[in-house]
């Protein structure tokens, strides 16, 4: 059993935990939305405004060119009232430059995220940290005399768990790519 799985119960609040009893579920689980957009100026702002107008918080947003030239893909994770989210998705789909908007929450998807973590540490701590890093199949990508930079890859939940495990140490910098997803099989992302 991997470390990521064993630490599930101590994850930070706000993340969806499907194995928990209903009363333990957070009120507003994180939703993952994919957008396929026409790559026209202003499309990112138009998308952001749909969320902002309704006071909805975007937790992560990844934009990259799509396989088809002239189009981009966005993966957005966000949390908030589910009925508002339904409305947001309809309003996103209505935007002239948005080809489609899909909520993949609960669907069969491949997901991935990369994180870089910088830790200031002495030699004693370094051994403990490396053990954790090893358990999470992360890698040290920069060794310094007083610091380490770690690159972790996997599901967002796994990265959450790694961060939690590294909390006791001097985590000075953290950057996450944001979640990217792809629907399994022939389903459209």
């Amino acid at each position: 059993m991997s470390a990521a799985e064993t630490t599930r119960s101590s994850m930070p609040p706000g993340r969806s935990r499907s194995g928990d009893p209903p009363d333990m579920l957070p009120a507003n689980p994180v939703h993952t939305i994919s957008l396929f957009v026409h790559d026209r100026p202003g499309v990112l702002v138009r998308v952001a405004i749909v969320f902002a107008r309704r006071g909805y918080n975007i937790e992560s947003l990844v934009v990259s060119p799509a396989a088809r030239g002239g189009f981009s893909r966005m993966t957005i994770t966000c949390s908030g009232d589910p009925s508002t989210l339904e409305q947001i998705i309809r309003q996103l789909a209505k935007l002239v430059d948005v080809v489609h908007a899909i909520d993949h929450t609960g669907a069969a998807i491949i997901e991935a995220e990369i994180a870089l973590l910088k830790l200031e540490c002495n030699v004693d701590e370094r051994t403990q940290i490396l053990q954790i890093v090893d358990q999470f199949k992360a890698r040290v990508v920069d060794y310094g005399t007083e610091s380490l930079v770690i690159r972790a890859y996997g599901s967002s939940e796994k990265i959450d768990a790694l961060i939690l495990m590294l909390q006791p140490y001097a985590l000075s910098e953290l950057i996450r790519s944001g979640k990217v997803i792809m629907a399994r099989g022939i389903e459209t992302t």
Partner: protein
Amino acid sequence: MESKLPTGAEKLIQCLEREGVEYIFGLSGGAAMPIFDALFDSRIKLVLTRHEQGATHMADGYARATGKPGVVLVTSGPGATNTITGLLTAQMDSSPIIVLCGQQIVSLLGSDAFQEADVTGITYPVVKHSYLVKDGKEIPRVAKEAFYIATTGRPGPVLIDLPKDVTQGDCDAPFIDEDDLELPGYGIPARAEASLVAEAAAYLKAAKKPILYIGNGAVISGAGKSIMSLAEKLRAPIVNTLLGKGATDETHPLHLGMLGMHGTAYANKAVVDCDLIMSIGARWDDRITGKLDEFCVDAVKIHVDIDPAENCKILTPDVFIEGDARLVIEDLLPLIEPGDTKDWLDQCAAWRKQFPLRYPKQGGLRTQHVLDRLNAITQGQSIITTDVGQHQMWAAQFCLTTSNRHWICSGGAGTMGFGLPSAIGAQFGCPDKKVWTVCGDGGFQMTLPELATANIHNLPVKCLIINNNYLGMVRQWQEMFFDNRYSGVDLEGNPDFVKLARAYDIKALRIKRAADVDRILQEAHDYDEGPCVVVAEVAKEDNVFPMIPAGAPLSGMLIEKPKHKLEKPTGST
């Protein structure tokens, strides 16, 4: 022979000509000068307004009266920001207008140069779509897309920001046809799904007390005739929203008039009691539903809308049919069997008799009386635009519409200052129609300089100013809910509107007594040589009833001012 390329501005104007644009409403300025220069040689007529807000409402009034897009041309910076109220108004009421803005040269974008502003950025939330054109080659494509997007599906405003070097420079791009547009994210609903239409027909067949609730979508699609056929076949009563007025004949025996906050008592009672309500191009606005939790709880709800984003926005219907109102009703009609609704129609007739629209005949000149008589004179044949406030609600109650696109007002945005310029735009679009605007003294003063615009074009717009020297609707709420604490509603300092109109060299008449109403309204109605201002000096304090206090259920409708003190409304504004 050396052929000279057109400038971007010339190409733009050629594109507008190809779209059939007759008028451009606008106000000039430095960054828009190349476009104004190109207009000089065009057959498109420029209507120079006195303020950019006026220009947007004129284009909006033109669009709503004709169904064709209205075009606005303004300069950069403040010229463009002055269009924002007009954009919001058009966006909320699904009106197709195209706003062309001059802009600083491309290299100075974002540099705080003179009259430079992030206009596309400022306007994102109030447009259907927008463009910042950074290369003259894009002009034909952008113009074609703008007109296509503004006028199709659920119409709305489109803004095009045009840097001066782009309009001044050469443009060697060819014209674009609609078939060549590439808009993969923009679709127009196809014919409605047959299974959903059949489902709606089954619900309608089972209903004992159905009601048809008609909105602006029916106006836009011209669904009125089909809806009347549906109502007559079903033997179902009709109610319409403020913006749905005109789609169907309000004088028809099956028509109960306007529903909602200031709708007729019989319309609202029918909505409370119905067992099926079918929205045709209406969007369950808070002015219609009152307290949502108690709105038609047990009734079947059918929703027909061209905009799929309206599905489940406010409430969850039993059937949602995405499509153009007229086409959906045409598909539905063959499936409809004659309804047996005699008891239901008798009940509606009884309510109509028991709770008619009425108003006190004493206590000075009454707005209701003036508008009742205006209705008698216009008989649904004139285009009536209104401003926003008490007079708007009374006009909606008393001026019954019989023809489509004959009723124009700002519903969603509730924009004061809309009345006069929208009437001017409507008159440009419909020169053979008589056009009245009904304004309050508050709203009239927000765009009154457009009197000059009407006058220089000899437009026979008739402007009825309901003058009570108050912001009357807010005063009414303060009287009813705030213990008569009149705060910020007294329009002390109003000018003499008759003298003001005459200062513009415009014919002006004053109504002071009820006995003069018919004669003066008729005189104005018959005067066609130019604008005419009629000032009705009405009772200072008067209230619009029926009224459903904001946030109250429809069953909480007040027919008249209650004796007891009312709680402040806690629902929507």
